[in-house]
């Protein structure tokens, strides 16, 4: 079953639309769903032109396609998603794929903050850039991502994979400040540069194929290793946090 949700053009507005109802399994029972624009509850068809092709009786067979100029306003799309596919033909707003446990979300544009927050499984692909807190946890320092994978083909903002405890995050471009902060499990791979990776890490593995700017002084150097055809410098830490994590970098610069 393919559900196409084309956002209706409307007066220019930036009031966010919370659309946690947009999850493949919800469409098994029809399209009579609600979304919220600020404090107003709206029917799905007040915001989208809705069309459905084919049918399905399990979430895995449902694909939801979101399109329109304003998809960046949509928050919480794919929250608690456990199967099926969501394709966003543009940018997506905050909290896409929160608590996701299965299925695939593919974003052709950029994703706003908290993409894949606290996800436990499934796959998120973002063809553009992601803002801050991709694959992170919630306020209060609880576990971030616990499983699944997030792959970003553009750049990532700050606090990428904060508190990650499992799963894999790969960023093909650069990442911002504090990538992998408070990491205690899982794997983070940044193909480009980033700042202060793996701050306060406990366990887990963080790879930086570019340069770690502002490298923290509390990682102990253990020589070099070969990794997928690259020579990387291996650190363990963060010793300030009695950590035993692994940080591999191509190059690094202290703020000395």
């Amino acid at each position: 079953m393919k559900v196409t949700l084309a956002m209706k053009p409307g007066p220019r507005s930036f009031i966010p639309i919370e659309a946690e109802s947009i999850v493949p399994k919800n469409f098994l029972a029809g399209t009579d769903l609600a979304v919220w624009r600020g404090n107003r509850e709206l029917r799905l068809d007040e915001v989208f032109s809705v069309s459905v092709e084919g049918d399905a009786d399990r979430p895995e067979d449902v694909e939801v396609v979101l399109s329109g100029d304003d998809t960046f306003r949509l928050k919480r799309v794919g929250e608690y998603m456990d199967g099926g596919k969501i394709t966003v033909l543009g940018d997506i707003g905050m909290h896409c794929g929160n608590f996701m446990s299965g299925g695939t979300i593919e974003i052709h544009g950029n994703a706003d903050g908290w993409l894949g927050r606290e996800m436990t499984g499934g796959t998120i692909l973002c063809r553009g850039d992601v803002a801050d807190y991709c694959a992170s946890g919630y306020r209060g320092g609880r576990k971030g991502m616990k499983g699944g994978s997030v792959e970003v083909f553009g750049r990532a903002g700050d606090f990428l994979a904060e508190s990650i405890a499992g799963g894999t995050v790969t960023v093909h471009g650069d990442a911002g400040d504090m990538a992998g902060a408070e990491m205690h499990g899982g794997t983070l791979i940044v193909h480009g540069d980033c700042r202060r990776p793996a701050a306060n890490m406990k366990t887990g593995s963080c790879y930086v194929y570019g340069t770690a700017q502002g490298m923290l002084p509390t990682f102990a150097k253990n020589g070099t290793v070969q990794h997928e055809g690259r020579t990387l410098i291996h650190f363990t830490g963060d010793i300030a946090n009695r950590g035993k994590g692994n940080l591999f970098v191509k190059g690094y610069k202290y703020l000395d």
Partner: protein
Amino acid sequence: MIVKDAVCPFCGCLCDDIEVEVEGNRVVAVANACELGTTKFMCEERLKGPILRDGDGWKEITYDEAIRYAADTLLSAERPLLYGWSGTHGEAQCVGVHMAELIRGVIDNTSSVCHGPSILAIQEVGHPGCTLGVVKNRADLVIYWGSNPIDAHPRHLSRYTRYADGFFLENAFRDRKVIVVDIRRTQTANIADEFVQIKPGGDYAVLSALRAIVQGKTETIPRTVAGVTREQLVRVANLCKGAKFGAVYFGVGLTMTRGKYKNIRNAIELVSELSRHTKFTISAMRGHYNVYGSNEVNTWMTGYPFGIDFSRGIAFYNPGETTAVDILARKECDAALIVGSDPAAHFPRRCLEHLADIPVIQIDPYPNATTAFCNVQIPVAVTGIDAVGTAYRMDGVPIRTRRVLSTDYPSDEEVLLRMYTLMQGAR
């Protein structure tokens, strides 16, 4: 007439030993207060009554009209923002929370542009702190990190630290060491026993290094960290471990620089580490006299200290998303109520552009930078001067302010309650 033990409604020190001399319902002299507090008591020019924007100018309207306008505007909004609150009393803040709940808006206070990061850090690792008197009576080591009390909290040094004698320190100036950590030599640095100058953006690295050194892992630390020599770091770590009671006070120099709440988290974790060796505490130098009260009120009523979004009926909290600067910069609100703060004086330009585009109601005694952005301004009595109410000091001690003048201005609480009553009628 002299009003004794008045409470100063300026900074988070909330000094409650002020003597205000009043003649003919006018403040003529202020004793014990610092310059900032004195100026506040001496009263700036206030607005006489509510004003409504009328083309390029203003027209005077009645309180009833202004309150009705405010209620209608906020009721019709899809995502109203209720911001400020640090410059008013707790009772008014409570009404604000009820209002946000009722109209399903976002309520946020000035923490989001000062110590919000401290709160986020506390939410990750907790907060070993104490009241100011504990420091005054016991601390033989005080560290000011990214804060400059001589400028921002002038009496902090004389009431609680550098010059304050306490029960266990008969000669504080001699028996108490003061360390200042900052990126530049501030005035406070000049009265310190030790000054640690850090390269901008280097606080986190220095804090991590100190944590490692306190654990005895000095050998991993490079020769210099963000401009600070390893020797100095070791000396500071030893001063900390050797103290009987150490107290860290940090300011926006730590919260609002690169890394933000991670800096504070690191500082708190340093203090937790030091607590294995001796007594150590850490506290934020809160700015507005009742910003902490705003956090307290929001917390007992909504569960969260700031940045609470009631759009969906329940309280949702996510600083970076539900905080005023973020909402304004992203143009995500369609009306605003500003109470007891002056965002136009502090917010980034992008935020002000949106503020100029939406209806704004300001409740404030004084014409200020935000006046230029608002459609209606409603003047009120000033808490601590002509209104009474509860304020929370930077260490969480609640104090009831005193009234030193009587005027006809309604209090923030009265104005907000009248708005709230109208809104209840409409819902």
